[in-house]
Every structure is written in C-alpha cells, then in structure tokens.
C-alpha cells in the first residue's frame, strides 16, 4: 500500500448543538488527486479546514504528512500549500513579486519560472495583481499555494465562477500538478470536474462520508445505465421497471440490464400505440450518483 499523506480516523466537529462532521475516516495516498464532494453545509469546508490547521476538531485522529495539523507547526506548513477560495493578495504588487514574496517564506521554494509556467501566468508576470482577470487571479492563488514546492496541495473550489474555457485551462493545470507528483485534495461543487480530475472521490452528506471510490467505481457501483423518456399525461406505465419522475417532465429508470428493460418498455409502448419521446439510454454520470446519494427522497416512484 502506498504511503498515506492524509489519514483521518473518527473525525468529529461540533458547533454548539450542530454536528458538522460526524466521525469520518479518510486515507489519501501520495500522488493522488482526491476530490471531496458534497452539497453546501455537508461539512466539506470544516473537514478541509481542520486538515489545513485553520480549525480545531472535537474528536478523532488526524495525521497530515506525519503531523497533527491542530498543533500549528511551521514544519508542516513548509510542506503543504493551501489555495483558499478568496484571494487576499496585495493588489499593487506584480504577479512575480507576489509569488516571490511567498517563495521567501519557504525553505525550498519552487523556482519562480516553474511556478508561473505551471499556472500559465508567464505573460502576466509583470502585471499588477489588480489588473488580472478573475481566472488569472485564481491561477495566481494556485501559484502562491505552489510557491513553497509543497508535497500536498489543498484546492478549495478552484474553478468556481470560471467560464468553460478557463475551466478547461484550470483542469489542464491541475493535471500538470499530478505530473509533478503532488498530492491534491480538491473540494468542488462540479461533478464533471471531479470526474475529469480525481483519482478517487468521497461524497460527504450531513457530516458523513456516504461513498468513497474512484469516479468509475462510484458510477459502476450503481446501476449500469439510465433510461429516460417522455410519455403522454395519464398513460398507465408498465410495472416492474422502477420508473420514476425526474426533472423536466422526464420519466427515468435505472437498470442493470438495459437490453431487457428497454425491450419491456418499447413492447409496452408499441402495444399501447404510444410514442416515447426523447428516449435515451445512457451510462450514469457521477452527477446521477451524487444526486441519488445526496437527495434520496427526491423523485417520486410512479409505478
């Protein structure tokens, strides 16, 4: 088994009466890109901030690079990088000055040119921070997180607010971090982002981890495919397929045997003389799995 960079056992955090984190276990290995997913208020940020040393924990064991982050040790901070959601950088300094200032805090910083190359800010190196676009500022945040050549990088929602092109650019950047051998703990709202980037994904709901696997594994652990279609109002739908109403007036069914179930469905439709509009059969996306795990009660079973 590879070396664990982050190891968490029975982590709990209480705020007054609220259990924000209810005893989670995590193991993240060297060189992994690990995504922590979950709806707002699931406890992701609390968990990550405990790992970063920004917050204390109520119970449990936490080990980050062999340290307890709760003890606020410089030796740990020298080996990890944190990319927060908010910039908090001096607007009147240039890009290279900003990176250089942070490089100065670390014993073995990454060379300036290498940092700028990884985040793709070589052309903006002499530009003032305030003149950067939103996407460029976010890249600078990552650059600052990388300045000390960390073994472990925390990325908190790195592409929130990006346009699609900027997101693809950021994804390429995160992939290049993996090539540098960095371990990355990514939190994100975007499931396609986790699917595209992460080696493993944990889904957190109400303070607990409800699923943890590779993106492909999470999808495969669920039914293999989903059938979606529209039917006329009031049509008596066939039994036994687990049909339920989904968004936008669609009816859907998850199936492990799409060939047989599709045959049942189309035979029924032909017999009734009903046209199944917008009929599709698709593999589950991580989003489908996520929605099922985080929102069990939604979507009424109609037959």
């Amino acid at each position, binding site marked *: 088994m590879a070396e664990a960079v982050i190891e968490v056992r029975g982590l709990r955090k209480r705020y007054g009466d609220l259990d924000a984190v209810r005893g989670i276990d995590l193991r993240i290995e060297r060189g992994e890109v690990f995504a922590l997913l979950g709806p707002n208020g699931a406890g992701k940020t609390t968990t990550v901030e405990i790992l970063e040393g920004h917050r204390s924990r109520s119970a449990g064991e936490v080990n980050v690079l062999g340290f307890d982050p709760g003890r606020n040790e*410089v030796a740990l901070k*020298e080996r990890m990088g944190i990319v927060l959601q908010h910039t*908090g950088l001096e607007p*009147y300094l240039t890009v290279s000055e900003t990176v250089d*200032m942070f490089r100065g*805090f670390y014993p073995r910083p990454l060379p300036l040119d290498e940092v700028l190359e990884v985040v793709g800010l070589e052309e903006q190196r002499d530009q003032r921070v305030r003149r950067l676009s939103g996407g460029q500022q976010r890249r600078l945040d990552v650059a*600052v997180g990388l300045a000390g050549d960390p073994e472990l990088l925390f990325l908190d929602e790195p592409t929130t607010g990006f346009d699609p092109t900027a997101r693809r650019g950021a994804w390429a950047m995160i992939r290049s971090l993996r090539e540098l051998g960095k371990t990355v703990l990514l939190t994100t709202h975007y499931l396609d982002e986790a699917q595209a980037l992460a080696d493993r994904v944990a889904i957190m709901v109400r303070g607990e981890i409800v699923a943890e696997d590779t993106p492909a594994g999470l999808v495969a652990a669920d039914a293999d495919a989903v059938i979606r279609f529209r039917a006329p109002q009031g049509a008596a739908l066939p039994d036994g397929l687990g049909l339920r109403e989904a968004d936008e007036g669609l009816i859907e069914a998850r199936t492990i045997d799409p060939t047989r179930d599709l045959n049942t469905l189309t035979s029924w439709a032909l017999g009734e003389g009903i046209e199944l509009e917008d009929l599709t059969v698709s593999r589950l996306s991580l989003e489908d799995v996520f929605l099922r795990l985080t929102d069990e009660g939604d979507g009424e079973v109609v037959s």
Partner: protein
Amino acid sequence: MKAARLVLLQIKYQERAFRRNPAAAFFTIAFPLIFLVILNVIFGGNDLNLGDRVISGATFYIPAIAALTIVNSCYTSIAMSWVFDRDGGVLKRVRGSPLPPWAFLFGRIAHAMILMLALLVLVVLFGWLFYDVDVPGQTMPAVLVTLAVGAFAFCAMGFAIAAMVPNADAAPAVVNASILPLLFISDVFIPPDAGTPAWVEHVSSVFPVRHLSEALQTGFNPFETGAGFEPVHLGVIAAWGVVGLLVTLRFSSWEPRV
C-alpha cells in the same frame, strides 16, 4: 536571522505596494500638513496662554499635529488595514503559510512606524521652515520617549478596535467615530484657551489623546527649562496601551467575519 529576514521581506513588499498607490501615498503624506496649514490659518495668528507662558499659535500646532500623526499612523491606519486584511483573507492566508504570525504583524507595525517617523520629521521641518517653531533640543529625549509610548499604545488600541469592528464596510465609520471626537476635545485641533468648558476637559482627561498632546506640548515648549518628561501623561497613555493589548489578545481573530 531568519526572523529578521522575514520581517524585512514584509516591510519591503509593503513599502513597494504603498508606493504603487500614488493617490493613497500622497494623501497619507499630505494629510498632517493640510491640517497644519489650515489650523494655522484659522487660529495660528493668536498667541496662546499656556499656564503662565505665552506661546505663538504655530508653536502650539506643531506638537498638536505631531499627536495627530501618531494617532493617525498607529491607531487609524493599523485598525483599518487589519480589518481589511482580515476580511480580505490576507490574515488567513498568512496563517496557512510558514510565515510566523508575529513576523507578519511586526512587518505591518514597522511599516507604520517608518511612515510615522517620516511624517513627524516632515511636520517638524515644516514648522521650523515656515512657522519659526523651534526643534526640541534638551527635551528631545522626552519627545522620543513620548513618541515610543504613544506609538505602542495607539498601535495596541488600533488592533483592539479592529477586533471590535464586525466587517470591512464598518471599519471607517467605527474607527473614525471612536477617534475624531477625542481629537476635537483633547487640545489637538482646537487650542486650549478657545473656551472649552472645564467638564469637557475632565471627560477628555480619561482618554489617552489629551495626555499624548499635552506631553508633546511640554516637549515642544520653548520655555521648558527641565527635561520635559511628563510621567503622569505617559502613565495614562501606557495604561491605555496595556488595555488595548489585553483586548487584542483576547478578541482578535485571523478569520474573516462574514
């Protein structure tokens, strides 16, 4: 040595950022001089009776504006920048880096001190050149001690008030409302024989601004024959500094409060 290097690094980049914002830099520097000129134009022509001595209005205003400069550079600017850094996530970012918090803090304070000393030299030079105000000689040690005690106390109170300010939007209002009235009732803007009621002076004697301005008045008084030390005033200022420090240590935070 590593510590000194980290603090110098902070000062270097702070100073660079300060210079890059010329509008802010210009008015920070011009601010005390603007007050000096305006107040001298309005009140400077009258001689003032300070106890049994008569001094010119201009001689009164140099130490008064020096007090304003200390208050402004330490209390106001530290409180504002601390709240803005806190809400902008700068402090949180520092906490996540290996830069020790005290090194960051020390860098901020040192930058404020350098700016304050430059402004004080400018004010005294301005008074000497244009208003015939003597530069303190034998009272210089007393002036420097007052400066040091005042800088400590008003920095500490700046951090303390920052801890009381809920967010960056409220910072200018809270900070100004807490200090401007004191500047008016503490013989900084308005000279002591302008008819200020006695009870107002009693009220302001509780607060540190009056003690700072009076200690500096003694230091700049051309008729002062002693060393010019004012232990009572210095004691009150220092006591406020200690209160500020305790409040800071108890309530200050590094996290945005939004």
